[in-house]
């Protein structure tokens, strides 16, 4: 049963995933963490980190990884988890395959019509909101700790958050390099 839901969920994500890799992440996060509870917020955050650091599109990377983790967390064995990651990845690609073929075949001429353009005009501001929601939903105790629980980890987490935002946003440091810096900081400060 979980395989069927995995398929349906990732098909939906593929169908509604507008706004590039990060836009899609907000959908994956909402479905796998908030709705289905297939994994915790920190497991999801780890998946995003690894998907970012490894080659390949971030949407495919995280779908593969989420499919695997969901099945493992449900108590199944590794071979079944591999099947789970194949299911999630295939389901994510399938809507693209159908839509892009349809567009190449017949809707090419409709893509620039005012109606289609106004649909996209409506989507653009909402994708911003989707990303903002994903950010807020990941600001959890798992990811940052709390001032009362572990003040040391909490304030360092805030500092690393700000450093990464400033480093990648203003100084244009490569995100992968930034993740490596924070891994070193984590190793030195939390070990």
């Amino acid at each position, binding site marked *: 049963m979980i395989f069927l839901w995995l398929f349906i969920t990732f098909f939906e994500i593929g169908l*509604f995933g507008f706004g590039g890799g990060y836009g899609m992440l907000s*959908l994956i996060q909402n479905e796998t963490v908030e709705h289905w509870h297939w994994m915790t917020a920190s497991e999801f955050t780890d998946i995003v980190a690894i998907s970012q650091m490894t080659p390949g599109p971030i949407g*495919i990377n995280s779908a593969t*990884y989420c499919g695997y983790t969901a099945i493992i967390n449900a108590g199944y064995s590794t071979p079944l988890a591999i099947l789970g990651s194949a299911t999630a990845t295939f389901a994510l690609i399938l809507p693209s395959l159908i839509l892009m073929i349809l567009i190449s075949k017949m809707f090419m001429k409709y*893509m620039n019509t005012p109606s289609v353009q106004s649909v996209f005009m409506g989507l653009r*501001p909402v994708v911003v909101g989707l990303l*903002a929601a994903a950010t807020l939903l990941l600001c959890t105790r798992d990811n940052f700790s709390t001032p009362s629980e572990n003040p040391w980890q909490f304030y360092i987490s805030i500092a690393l958050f700000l450093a990464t935002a400033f480093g990648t946003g203003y100084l244009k440091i490569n995100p992968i390099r930034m*993740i490596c810096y924070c*891994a070193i900081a984590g190793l030195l400060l939390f070990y």
Partner: protein
Amino acid sequence: MNNIYWDSFKTFFKIGMFTLGGGYAMIPLIEEEVVNRHKWINKEELLDLIAIAQSCPGVFAINTAIFIGYKLRKTPGAIATAFGTALPSFLIILAIAIFFHQFEDNKVIAAMFKGIRPAVVALIAVPTFRLAQRAQLNWFTIWIPIVSALLIWLLGVSPIWIIIAAGVGGYAYGKLKVES
């Protein structure tokens, strides 16, 4: 083997494998491999293709691959390029997932990931502002992202409903504007 399916599969396998950091990073790779080397599409077609692949839902890299595959050999071509693009990701992530699961509880790895997690949240926060600039929000539209974020965050509304509402809203607004 020397046919177009194998050639296009191989080319997109390469593109999938060397794309680091998401969709836009693959544009120069596609230009080099697909436009300059194999001449499967020309420069203008590439621009159209980028516009369409970006506006459609789904993974940008996969959309691009499908479009080119379809142009070469219809549906079987599209399947070859789509799987070519996804396969390196799938194999690499699978290897890491199997491997990482055994090291998750390792103290060194755990400490590193404690440092990485806040960074990842920041990596998602930064494109929020970048996208906000690109969406050219003004006083008339600024409430849309705020309300949608709050609906998802506080009320647990699925983003899928928000996307559908936004598409319908944009369409209706376009129609009203034409009529008035």
